[in-house]
């Protein structure tokens, strides 16, 4: 049996090349979750505030994933059941899964966006959870030796991001501004 014989799961609907961007075919990654795709397709994080959207992919085989991490570090967290919530552990889980799907660890690349500070003045958030999330993501990528190709982090505005496993493009939308990293 080859990879072509394996039917794609229903959530991995890829878009045709050159077709307009369709949000209904994109797979939405919920808060504290990650999704991986081994066919060309789109993964979306809607409304990233202090969360970070971490995309990791192998450009040669078009295998990639997107994590929507809400907290920085697994060991500092309360919930030890759902490790996908944390920036560091979600990267590790996703990398293992991508390698299992056929990606080459040495070829993996990453792009991250998010980590905004939504409310300008918060006393219990003096440590700035958004900033801590992006720092944890960066540090983990470095430790895993995954090269960070682009990032758009910090600021005070929420972002909606679309990651495409077809070409590794990572589209960021902030209000009316749309750009790629």
């Amino acid at each position, binding site marked *: 049996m080859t990879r072509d014989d394996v039917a794609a799961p229903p959530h991995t609907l890829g878009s045709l090349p050159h077709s307009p961007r369709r949000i209904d075919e994109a797979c939405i990654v919920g808060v504290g979750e990650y999704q991986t795709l081994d066919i060309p397709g789109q993964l979306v994080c809607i*409304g990233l*505030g202090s969360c970070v959207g971490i995309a990791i992919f192998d450009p040669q085989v078009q295998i990639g994933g997107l994590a929507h991490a809400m907290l920085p570090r697994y060991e500092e967290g309360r919930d030890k059941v759902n490790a996908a919530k944390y920036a560091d552990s979600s990267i590790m889980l996703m990398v293992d899964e991508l390698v299992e799907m056929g990606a080459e660890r040495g070829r993996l690349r990453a792009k991250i966006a998010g980590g905004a500070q939504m409310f300008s003045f*918060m006393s*219990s958030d003096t440590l700035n*959870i958004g900033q801590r999330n992006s720092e944890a993501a960066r540090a983990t990528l470095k430790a895993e030796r995954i090269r960070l190709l682009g990032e758009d982090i910090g600021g005070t505005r*929420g972002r909606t991001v679309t990651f495409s496993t077809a070409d590794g493009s990572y589209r960021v939308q902030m209000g009316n501004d749309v750009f790629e990293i």
Partner: protein
Amino acid sequence: MTLPSSIEQDPILLDGLTEIGNIGAAHATTALSKLIGRCIMVEVSEHYVCSTQKLPEVLGDPEQQVVAVYLEAYGAGKGGMLLMFSQDTATSLVDMMLSRPHAVRELDDTDRDAICEVGNICASAYLSAVAKFSGITMVPSPPGVSVDMLHAILQYVSAMAEEDSSELMVVQTQFVHGESSYFGNLLYLPDQGTIRLLAERFRAV
């Protein structure tokens, strides 16, 4: 940690939460009505349990732009308070407050400061009413204001709550003004310790 089912199904606690929602909301609307010189009414006050992770998705179109004021309760009773308006409601609130005709516009810095104060007054009135009713000290933190996607705002609130619990008790109040069906939304999110404390107090009454 999830909410113990004994608490979730405790009829005394649930009645008490309804009461808290009503009392808090009544004080918040009175304060708001006085501030803007119009009559604001409570449409619905309800409470429900929601997983912290799912909160950003359950309150409506995640990408709609909202104006939100967030603050936290300190003292014996802790938790978050979030007040949300649509952009147009927010600017018309500011215009009512300053007794000037309403102009459709994006929020400027003055509007943000004014809306922050509206949130502060509402939330303080709500919290002090709840504190008086339950006998649990609750002091509001300074407010923060944000104009952004509903999902991004709620997701921040979730991340703050997540350090305490995987499930949230949400006490939600909807405001109406005149004929318009929707005016604003106020969420009170007591933390686990506060819920337990409230349950004890209600039982003692």
